[in-house]
């Protein structure tokens, strides 16, 4: 053992860990504020700035959707790799792994409908900026690519890849390309179940690139640079609400 090694502490904790719980409720008049799902997540932020989230999602609305995802981005929020596993109506739907390279993304997947599939999709606009794995906790990460120095307005991610074009993410997992428009409304202080936070307020306008038009989506994230999802809601036929109800730093 070298002198420099022996001088080092026996433990190494260069990362931080946060855990959160997001409650899914309905805003339909006949189901107002009823719980309809939940999400548990752990985010590890490495000493070099990248981060990995492991997230378990349950949507109770029949047919139920259960999704486990593990997704990693680098310090610039650029996707590195992702695992997604889907259960629909308590039956296996699919399991897949995504690897994001500079010029292309590959997907190795096995689904109940498509069987074993290997996909390779070339990027049309350089390195992929963001990936939609359908965890609510990761919806807010897209907005890390909004240039806040330009103030409120609308900006776009020209090429986003999804693991499913279904609004609930209940197909695949397989690659699907999309353009994402992002509206920055401004900053405000908001209170959610997990506490009171300084927040960025964003919107995703109606998206017509999907097989079915997605209603507008309001998203509030923390303003501390971590883009932690605080609350959000989808209008139109969905009338769903999502809110961070537990949040704690466990390491670091």
């Amino acid at each position, binding site marked *: 053992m070298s002198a420099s090694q022996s001088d*080092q*502490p*026996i*433990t*190494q*904790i*260069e*990362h931080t*860990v946060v*855990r959160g719980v997001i409650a899914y409720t309905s805003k339909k008049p006949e*189901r107002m504020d*009823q719980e*309809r799902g*939940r999400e*548990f997540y*752990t985010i*590890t932020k*490495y*000493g*070099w700035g*990248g981060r*990995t989230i*492991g997230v*378990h999602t*349950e949507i*109770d*609305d*029949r*047919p*139920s959707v*259960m999704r*486990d995802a*593990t997704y*990693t981005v680098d310090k610039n929020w650029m996707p*590195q*790799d992702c*695992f997604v*596993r889907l*259960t629909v*109506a*308590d039956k*296996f739907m699919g*399991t*897949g*792994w995504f*690897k994001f390279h500079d010029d292309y993304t590959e997907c*190795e997947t*096995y689904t109940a409908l498509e069987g*074993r599939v290997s996909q390779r999709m070339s990027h049309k606009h350089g390195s992929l900026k963001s990936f939609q794995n359908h965890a609510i906790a990761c919806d807010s990460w897209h907005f890390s690519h909004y240039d806040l120095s330009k103030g409120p307005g609308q900006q776009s991610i020209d090429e986003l890849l999804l693991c499913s074009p279904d609004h609930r993410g209940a197909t695949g997992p397989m690659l699907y390309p999309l353009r994402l428009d992002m509206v920055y409304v401004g900053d405000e202080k908001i209170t959610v179940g997990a506490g009171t936070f300084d927040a960025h307020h964003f919107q995703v306008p109606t998206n017509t690139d999907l097989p079915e038009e997605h209603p507008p989506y309001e998203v509030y994230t923390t303003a501390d640079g971590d883009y932690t999802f605080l609350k959000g809601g989808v209008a139109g036929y969905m009338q769903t609400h999502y809110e961070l109800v537990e949040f704690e730093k*466990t*390491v670091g």
Partner: protein
Amino acid sequence: MTKPYHQRDHVTRRGRLVYTSKKPDRLDEERGREQWTLTRHADGRRSLMSHGEIDDRPSVLRFVHLTANADWSPIDAFVRITVGDEFRGSGWFRFADGVAECETVTALEGRMSQRFPYSGTCPGFGGHAIQNDGWVCASVDLSRPGEQQTFSQLVSSTDHRGATGPYIAEARPTVIYQGNETITVGAGTFEAHHFQFVAVDGLPEEHPIYNVWTTTDGDYIFLKGQVDGYMQTYYELVELTEGL
């Protein structure tokens, strides 16, 4: 309250393990932790999602996902590891009849596709989450207490801390089922199966004796465990949350 438009056919359990040392100079010092979610579906399939942290230098951070059939034969898995706070590997495993496949990218080996044949269904998989060790015990025949039982398992790494790969390797643990006892851990008092891993063939370095206690409720939840020899590590379930 569950309404007709709800579907909750599964059971979810969440747990937290603390890793401590039993070395005299570090006695009972926390040296890592693990948080997991277990889902049991109506047909008996189980999924485990685990996040583990080993603080001992070089640190190991691991995300593991494993799904098994009601008979504990694995269906698919994912392992992602960070060693010394740097990326080490990310790999996806699928266990079909007669063959396991692995699609992985690692810092040392690069992008690899593996195929590993076997007869019938895959006997079991170890992704190095401590809770996954509890599931390995499901391969032990409880009708043969006191006997040495050796069986095959695929593993994501042959390193004792699981700090290589991930890729497919084979190990053959020899385990003695020592019977049942009532034990108390941080998460409460439980009826427990006691297993003793006396050897593991297939590893480059000999693994010390490893005692493991799991629940007797069929979910093989890891309650406590201790590795002897040079490791002198101890693992204990300190929180268990039932249901939604």
